[in-house]
């Protein structure tokens, strides 16, 4: 799995952190997404797909 982030689109909602906290975090100052694990292990894939689906800015792209 490969995750791509569009920081320009990110609105800092934090929905990805709620869905997959081991893969995503937020910058303190503006809440923009921080990718903790660009190539996460398979047991987290479902969470990552959930995070991508829930992102209100569609800023997370997932390739499998």
């Amino acid at each position, binding site marked *: 799995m490969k995750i791509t982030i569009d920081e320009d689109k990110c*609105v*800092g909602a934090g929905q990805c952190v*709620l869905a997959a906290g081991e893969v995503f975090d937020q910058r303190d100052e503006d809440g923009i997404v921080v990718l903790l694990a660009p190539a996460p292990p398979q047991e987290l894939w479902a969470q990552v797909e959930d995070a991508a*689906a829930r992102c*209100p*800015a*569609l800023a997370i792209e997932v390739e499998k």
Partner: protein
Amino acid sequence: MDRIVVVGASAAGLTAAETLRRQGFTGTLTMVGEELRPPYDRPPLSKQILAGDWEPHKATLRPEEALQPLGLHLKLGRRATGVDPVARTVTLDDGDTADYDGLIISTGLRPRRLPFGHDLAGVHVLRTLDDTLTLRAQLLAGPRVVVIGAGFLGSEIAATARGLDLDVTLVDIEPTPLFRQVGSEVGELVAQLHRDHGVSMRLRRQVAGMSSRNGRVTAVDLDDGTRIPADVVVVAIGSVPATDWLSDSGIPLGDGVLCDPTCHVVSGVYAAGDVANWPHPTAGGRIRLEQRTNATQQAITAATNLLAGPNRALPYAPVPFGWTDHYDTKIQIHGWCPPGAHIEVVDGDLRSRRFVALYHADGRVVGALGWNSPRALLRYRARLPEPTAA
């Protein structure tokens, strides 16, 4: 289930379609959208698109190559005009019909309008990308702008117009901007933010009428007799659910499409997004949520429940989340932050313009609001009661 029709091709409709495919629905999937454009995102309209920071195509929800694999019968520029829930048929404005085994209604909202003024040149509403581009073209001429309504949309439009260095007046009947969304204490900070950036505020004022010359607006007249000269007026006084096409269809309507706790409407029919009205377990009754995150999450639930069938359907009980960006300020809300709730600042402080506040009502936490504190806010979300279906 062989045929599913999704009416409404914005965030909720597209998410429903994607969810259906992701969960293995291989039948005929039809999506009907009133606008000709492929599905696009609305939050950037009043911000990046109106400001000109983004090209319009950047608001497109999915690139063509991501829509293709969904195998949609995409009927864009076509309006659904009715549903027969017994015959299970949707009628379109060109007389065409689409039979369904499953139907998802996600037609969203239409802007509420004033009883006057909308026939005048220079008077705008903002809901669609076309509305936004039309307004932007007008703003480029350097007009004096009056925004009527200081909810999320009007307040953002005022901030964006000020960012274009225009003369902007923001009018609202309430004592502060965002009054109903964040209450008076935080609302007062929003008012101060606007004043700091040079927006003229006319609060606790109603609009009595508009003046015009040769069919073009020249001023907005307030109930205290003052007249605000205006070349462009934006009316942002809320929205109404787009259910006109469902009247007399047998689909239960109230403030939106009336669903049960699982987003189910009548046999085979579900609703999601701004248009859906359903009983929420911790909100104390039926609600609608006009929020971007709700469009996605409710569409996921509605589509999942449609495929699962009524016996295995799960209730939709989200902690609501919304946000607004003004100038360099980001305000985010989990839950509800109504006027009258007691505010407890738990991180930072109001004066520093960087804080998290919990909203208490009826002896419990009902909302958490972050002002330029996205990461800190998330830690306090857990203080909200996690809604569980009764």
